[in-house]
C-alpha cells in the first residue's frame, strides 16, 4: 500500500498537530501489517459469504474491529492469521444469526464470477496427458464448494491462504490433529469430485502413470 514518503509524512505530521504521535504510529503500523492483507481477506470473505456485498461488509467490519483492537495484536505473530480469526468470528456472529442459510451455494454467482475468465484448458503449452490440466476453474471451485464446510475451510486456509497447521488450529478452535485429519479426508473427497469432472473431459483417472 502507499506509504507516504518520509518528507511528506513529516509535513503531514506537523500539520496535524491534533493527532497524537501515538495514533499516527499506530496508523502507519496498521497499514504495513494489516491493510496489506486486504485482498486475501476479501477473497476469503467471498468464499464464505458467496455474496460480494456481504463480503465487503464483512471485510470492512473486520478492519474496523482490527484497528480498534490493534493494541492487542501480538507483535511478531502472523497478522494475517489474526485478521482471519477476527473475520471468521464476525462471520459467525453476524451471518449465522441472520436468516441467511449458511453453506448454500449460489451457482449463478459462481457463473458470474467465472464468466469472464479465459480458461487455460485449451491453450496450455504443455503437452500433457494429465487430467489436472483438463479441469476448468469453475469446476474446481464447484468441487471445493461441494465439500462439507469443516473440510472446505481447512483446505482453503491451508492450500489457498498458506497458513500453518498451528495457525489453522487456532482459527478453527481445534487441535492440530483434527486439522491434519480434516485435510486428509477433505482432499480425498475433493479428489473424487475432481476425477468426476476429469472423466467428463475424457480422462481415465484410474491410470497410475
Amino acid at each position, binding site marked *: 500500500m502507499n506509504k507516504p514518503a518520509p518528507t511528506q509524512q513529516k509535513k503531514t505530521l506537523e500539520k496535524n498537530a491534533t493527532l497524537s504521535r501515538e495514533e499516527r504510529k499506530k496508523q502507519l503500523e*496498521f497499514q504495513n501489517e494489516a491493510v496489506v492483507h486486504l485482498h486475501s481477506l476479501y477473497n476469503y470473505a467471498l468464499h464464505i459469504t458467496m455474496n460480494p456485498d456481504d463480503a*465487503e461488509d464483512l471485510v470492512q467490519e473486520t*478492519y474496523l474491529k482490527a484497528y480498534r483492537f490493534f493494541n492487542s495484536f501480538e507483535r511478531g505473530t502472523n497478522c494475517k492469521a489474526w485478521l482471519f480469526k477476527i473475520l471468521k468470528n464476525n462471520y459467525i456472529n453476524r451471518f449465522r444469526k441472520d436468516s441467511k442459510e449458511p453453506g448454500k451455494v449460489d451457482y449463478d454467482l459462481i457463473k458470474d464470477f467465472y464468466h469472464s475468465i479465459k480458461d487455460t484448458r485449451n491453450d496450455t503449452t504443455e503437452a500433457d496427458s494429465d487430467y489436472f490440466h483438463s479441469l476448468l476453474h469453475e469446476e474446481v471451485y464447484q468441487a471445493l464448494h461441494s465439500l462439507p464446510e469443516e473440510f472446505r475451510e481447512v483446505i482453503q486456509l491451508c492450500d489457498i491462504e498458506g497458513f500453518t497447521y498451528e495457525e489453522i488450529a487456532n482459527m478453527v478452535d481445534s487441535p492440530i490433529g483434527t486439522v491434519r485429519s480434516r485435510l486428509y479426508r477433505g482432499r480425498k473427497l475433493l479428489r473424487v469430485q475432481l476425477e468426476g469432472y476429469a472423466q467428463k473431459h475424457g480422462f481415465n483417472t484410474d491410470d497410475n502413470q
Partner: protein
Amino acid sequence: MDCTKASVLMSAAVDGELSFSEEEHFLSHLSECKECSGEFDDAKKTKMIIKEKIIRFKAPQALIDSIMQLTNFDTRETEETRLYD
C-alpha cells in the same frame, strides 16, 4: 511404519509439517508401499490443483478506499475513524 500410521501423517507430509524424524519414517514407508506412495502423489496433486485453479479476485476499489481511510493521515478522515474508538 504401517499404512494406518502413514495415512495419519499424509496431509502433514504434503504440507511440509512433519518433523525430521517423522518425515524419514514416512518416506521409508512410501518406498516400500505402492498404495501409500500413489495416495501421496494424488494428495499433492489435489493441493496443487486448488492452488492453481482457484481464482483470486481483487477487492473493489471502494472497499480499498474505505479501509485506507482508517489509516489515512488526512485530519478530516481521521476524525471520522475516531467515532469508532
